[in-house]
């Protein structure tokens, strides 16, 4: 009994922080297929299942497509389910991601951000999750291992309120394979925060139904789509509510944004994921040296997209620098494009610049950030895309 009430502090890899988050969330069904750099997540979970520390059914499958299919089947029977994947594995799940949304299933999945082939790369960038942004899954980008663990618990809370699935996204290696001190809330605290799932349309063998059967153009297909959008909008509120409640228990708050030195900032760098730390560090240094009014806005939530709050935060700044560790080919950085379009209807618009950088796991150092800010100060804001950090020595072989 005492054990249930005890908070634990452990030094955990990001991957294992995911596993502990899943454990305290009392997930009932896990199905996953291994892929670098996600494998340790499910290795530890299978060990927990084997030792009966976690009372879950662990289903081995032959592909990520099947892993998600198992999750959908288990979820629709009313179980709390979990899976994890990365890169190509996520892409293989694509079809079923839509299905999970359409069936309104509160599935939570950890995705370790890894660059997409070809050519092969196992290092971090966001193109795998970015290319799933239209599937109706909520997407939460994390910066630290503590945030990863807490976000898993929070994701179930929100998903099970609005009946939409959530991806918890963490960077390959920088988080997944790096150890940090992490506090695990006590089982009792999580149990109180996260009651068992009640899925209103959980399958009941006594009342057979067909789910997701064909709907004609005059049928409520479009209305069901509308309801998904409404649920996404409601999720923004629920994320805030859950984060406040969670803060009251643990003292940690993970809202839609994290604002750093933003109060007086006329230049704002918008960034997401683990590289945000480097930006915060560098901005702090710049502020000490040069008295520049510069701040960092870390975006945790890409879906649902926080239009209103973004306009409030960014509307009357002078210059916005959006850093994208991803690219939509033929267009540009996805965070950049979405933020730019979000601000378009404002009467007075800040200058906005979009930088594509760090693809395929390329490091972004404080020096790079100095250069980027200097570069941004020279630009008028007419570019739709800026590639930052292409290496001369890779081109002039």
């Amino acid at each position: 009994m005492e054990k249930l009430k005890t908070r634990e502090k452990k030094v955990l890899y990001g991957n294992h922080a995911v596993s502990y988050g899943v454990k305290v969330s009392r997930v009932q069904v896990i199905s996953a297929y291994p892929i670098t750099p996600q494998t340790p997540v499910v290795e530890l979970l299978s060990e927990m299942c084997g030792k009966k520390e976690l009372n879950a059914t662990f289903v081995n499958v032959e592909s990520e497509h099947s892993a998600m299919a198992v999750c959908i089947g288990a979820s629709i029977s009313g179980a709390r389910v979990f899976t994890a994947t990365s890169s190509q594995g996520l892409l293989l799940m694509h079809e079923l991601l839509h299905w999970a949304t359409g069936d309104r299933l509160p599935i939570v999945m950890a995705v370790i951000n890894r660059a997409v082939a070809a050519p092969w790369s196992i290092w971090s960038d966001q193109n795998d999750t970015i290319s799933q942004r239209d599937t109706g899954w909520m997407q939460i980008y994390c910066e630290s291992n503590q945030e990863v663990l807490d976000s898993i618990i929070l994701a179930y809370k929100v998903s099970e309120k609005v009946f939409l699935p959530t991806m918890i996204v963490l960077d390959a290696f920088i988080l997944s394979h790096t150890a940090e001190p992490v506090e695990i809330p006590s089982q009792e605290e999580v149990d109180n925060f996260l009651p068992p799932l009640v899925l209103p349309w959980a399958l009941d063998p006594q009342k057979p139904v067909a789910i997701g059967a064909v709907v004609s153009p005059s049928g409520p297909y479009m209305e069901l789509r509308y309801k998904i959008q409404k649920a996404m909008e409601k999720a923004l509120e629920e994320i805030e509510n859950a984060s406040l409640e969670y803060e009251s228990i643990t003292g940690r708050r993970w809202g839609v944004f994290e604002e750093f030195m933003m109060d007086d900032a006329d230049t704002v760098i918008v960034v997401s994921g683990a590289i945000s730390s480097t930006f915060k560090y560098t901005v702090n240094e710049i502020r000490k040296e040069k008295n520049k009014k510069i701040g960092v806005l870390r975006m945790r939530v890409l879906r649902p997209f926080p239009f209103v709050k973004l306009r409030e935060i960014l509307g009357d700044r002078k210059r916005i620098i959006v850093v994208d560790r991803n690219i939509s080919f033929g267009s540009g950085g996805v965070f950049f494009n979405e933020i730019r379009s979000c601000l378009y209807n404002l009467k007075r618009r800040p200058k906005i610049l979009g930088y594509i950088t760090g693809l395929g796991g390329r490091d972004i150092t404080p020096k790079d950030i100095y250069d980027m800010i200097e570069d941004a100060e020279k630009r008028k804001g007419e570019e739709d895309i800026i590639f930052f950090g292409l290496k001369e020595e890779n081109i002039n072989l």
Partner: protein
Amino acid sequence: MSERIHYKNIDELPEIALSVGSTRVLKTGSWRNVKPVIEDKAAPCTKACPIGTKIPQYFYHTIEKDLDKAADILLEKNPFPAITGRVCPAFCQIGCNRKRFDERISIREIERFVGDYILERGYKVKNLPSDTGKSIAVVGSGPAGMAAAYYLRRAGHKVTIYERESLPGGVLRYGIPPYRLPKDILDKEFEMLLNMGIKIETNRELSKDLDLEELRKNFDALFIATGAWIEKKMKIEGEELFLSGVHFLKEFNTGKDISRFKGKKVACIGAGNVAMDVVRTLKRINAKPEILYRRTEAEMPALEEEREKAKKDGIPFHLLVLPIKAKEKNGKTVLTIQRMQLGEPDSSGRRRPVPVEGSEYEEEYDFVIKAIGEESDRKLLPPEYLGEDGWPYADKKTAATKVKGVFAGGDFIQGPSTVVEAESWAQKAAESINRYLKGEDLTIKESVPKTVSYMLIKTDYFKKEKAIHPFELTVEERINSFEEEVKTLSDELAIKEAKRCFSCGYCNSCGNCFVYCPDMAVLWKDSRPLIDYDFCKGCGVCASECPRGIINMV
């Protein structure tokens, strides 16, 4: 079928598309372009068995502990599983697919286990057809004659067996020694045959007190299976000093006194099964037998297991030697022996032994027994029965002789072979006689089922497990007694071994197809799968997950 539900507002509209009507109206089977067909096939063991024993089928019931059903299936093809379960060379085991995975199934030992159960239970042949009014005479009560009588009686005919000896059984009684086949097993088998209504008249010998023409007159058909009892000639000087292997065995098996061999040095010429029976019997009465064979171990016609047991019994094998002369000296026999070497292959495919010039030596023996092969008595039948080579003739497929209504088989036609091959002749003869009596064409048009190869076995569904071997007496125990040297498997071990069977080509209700079908189009009826073609889309998962190759995509 459908009914529109009206919702007052968007909040009342459910979050997901739910349909309470049945999707069974959508016959998705129409999307199919290939379909699965469940078709039992032949297991390679069944294919290798001369009488086509349905091995996986009776194993299935053995595993289910329904020995009555197992027995009935076994008895469809094999009248004497307790006998073949002991002495069969087990061609089935050579065919077994499992040998490519770990080790072949001990099929013979399971057959013996069920065979022993039948001895206890009796035949209880169900649905014996009503009397056909026809009577058949069977001449000879060895394995071919016994089996023919059984098959013919099961077909509803009256059967009378004629036997020249005072007791029935032929080579089973007078040839095979009791440490391989105890006599009480044989007696029980005959008791069961008599209980079926088969008549046996002993001490009746063809061409002596039994007239062939009279038999033809008195019976609707005849089956002749008098075996091969005449020892072949070596055509060497002094051959008359030699005893015959089959006659030695007969003497021993009729209980005559053979103590004169005790402590004596005995040469046995030849290395076939008779030779092995001779030396191993001699060993048990404390004689000193030796094998003299003109080729090497690789060419020996004896069963490998008998050969190995003889070696372990401590019997010397003199290889590449051939006696070429014999003379008597002080009541003993002196053999002049020529050393041999292997030359080019002969018509049997075995390398021909060629004499080594100037290698002769002499050796003195108390007795010399000749066991170089037996042949049938060609004087038994009139000339119209003989083939072009001057030996008794019967067609290999129909067992029909050249004379209408007379059939023949077993060692009498084929020369020395095995019990199961004798049964196979009997099976063919019985089938032909049934056709003959109905006035039908004798030629059997066999529809040959496909055999399941190892490639079709999904070995992922099996775990490696060594075969179970029966308990055997140790060498010390066996060379001092005539006790049966191999024991029957216990219930537990027989069932455990049967469970190792892949059940090639025979559905054993494992349920994989039922479990894996993504469309629930495999139904389960009477413990068997049934494809629901209304909903089967022809994906082929059932076929690819069937561990035993039963489902074809066509």
